[in-house]
């Protein structure tokens, strides 16, 4: 299973920090130190596909755009910038983008943005050590729903649980935190777990994805609890598994640590529906890992092996 380069998207004039697939799979949004966001679209003809730059969104951010995320319905694009703001763009039927909102509140660099599975909540995180949860009201406005303090240092990345309104944050303080709305609602969110295991900055997180996982009922019935993978400046990846009978008694445990595959910091990680984990590092290397035996949810310490590697 060798990795083969299909296409190279050229246009940004500075380092590209983040790229996100549109939920339909035919577009990619990317953002850069050149302060722009670019949208690329795939065109298929005669069995060949090519990628074309279809939009360049510029002028809204004064500094590096660090992260981009499409909403689950593919209509909105959230962009977080080092200028401390988040821009929400809407895409109309002709494919034009309009800046709808600028979310202000973070004190300094915004590092991560993430939509929940319903597209109702948006999480953002910053060097100001906080994560914010914004709620999109039925009339399309965004309001701050929760301000999450607890990390000792920069919050580098945010991800939502794929089925629930539970948030996970990764930090320069070497930990991952879990946050959820307290019983009874009232917009009171609390930190409900701290996952400590990495020896340096945790750069990114990704949940296990299943081929069809659309509602919480599906997940609970068929899929158990998705696992979480984290990657770090300590050059390792950790796979975490929540164990326990009830939701509240569930504890995150390290199921597996992948060591020795990267020689420098690991900046990005993702989990494919086909049960592969891909990681990208400062060693200019992309690794793809597969679970041995092809089984899911293996025992603690379950075995993952490197399937392939691509190097610059």
């Amino acid at each position, binding site marked *: 299973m060798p990795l083969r380069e299909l296409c190279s998207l050229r246009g940004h004039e500075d380092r590209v920090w983040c790229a996100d697939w549109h939920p339909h799979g035919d577009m990619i949004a990317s953002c850069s*130190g050149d302060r722009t966001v670019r949208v690329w679209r795939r065109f298929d003809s005669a069995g060949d596909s090519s990628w074309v730059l279809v939009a360049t969104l510029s002028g809204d951010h004064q*500094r590096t755009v660090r992260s981009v995320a499409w909403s689950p319905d593919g209509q909105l694009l959230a962009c977080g910038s*080092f200028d401390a703001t988040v821009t929400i763009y809407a895409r109309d039927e002709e494919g034009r983008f309009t800046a709808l909102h600028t979310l202000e509140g973070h004190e300094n660099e915004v590092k991560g943005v993430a939509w929940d599975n319903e597209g109702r909540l948006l999480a953002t995180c910053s060097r100001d050590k906080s994560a914010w949860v914004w709620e999109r009201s039925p009339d399309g406005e965004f309001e701050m729903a929760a301000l999450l303090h607890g990390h000792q240092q*920069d919050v580098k990345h945010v991800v939502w649980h794929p089925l629930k309104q539970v948030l996970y944050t990764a930090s*320069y303080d070497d930990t991952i935190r879990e946050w959820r709305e307290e019983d009874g609602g009232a917009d009171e969110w609390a930190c409900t777990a701290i996952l400590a295991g990495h020896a*340096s*900055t945790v750069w990114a997180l990704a949940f296990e994805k299943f081929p069809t996982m659309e509602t919480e009922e599906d997940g609970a019935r068929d899929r158990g609890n998705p696992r979480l993978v984290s990657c770090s*400046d300590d050059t390792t990846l950790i796979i975490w598994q929540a164990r326990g009978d009830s939701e509240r008694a569930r504890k995150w445990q390290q199921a597996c640590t992948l060591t020795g595959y990267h020689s*420098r910091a690991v900046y990005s990680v993702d989990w494919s529906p086909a049960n592969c984990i891909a990681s990208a590092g400062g060693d200019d290397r992309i690794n793809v890992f597969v679970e041995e035996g092809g089984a899911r949810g293996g025992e603690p310490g379950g075995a993952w092996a490197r399937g392939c590697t691509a190097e610059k």
Partner: protein
Amino acid sequence: AHQRNESAGSDDDLNRESIDALEIFDLIRTIKDPEHPNTLEQLKVTELKGISVDDEHNTIQVMFTPTIPHCSMSTLIGLSIRLKILRSVPDRFKVDVKITPGTHDQEQGVNKQLNDKERVAAALENSHLVSVLENCLYGFE
């Protein structure tokens, strides 16, 4: 001298320009200390023996020694070394800038900051900070 070398970063091996520790030392020896009218070489903050270059594997490591163990300028000095190297060597190189072990109270914290690419990139977007750094970089050239 302030621009990245034009031929640098080319994928073409024929254009590959090899770099050694002495060249890196020559780049950073003239950096001015932010608080003293002296260069980092004069203050023995940077020395040739603190520099290692692995040209084949594209890595450069610079160890620098703060003048005092609680020097509050250590991060700034480290950033000035990083910026000078960044602007001068081909981008195939991975650069680590660290405090000589045991010579600073906040060694681990300073090292972590100096080698966090996101924090470094954000710092280098701060025009005031960059002008302070440039004063250190080019004051003695």
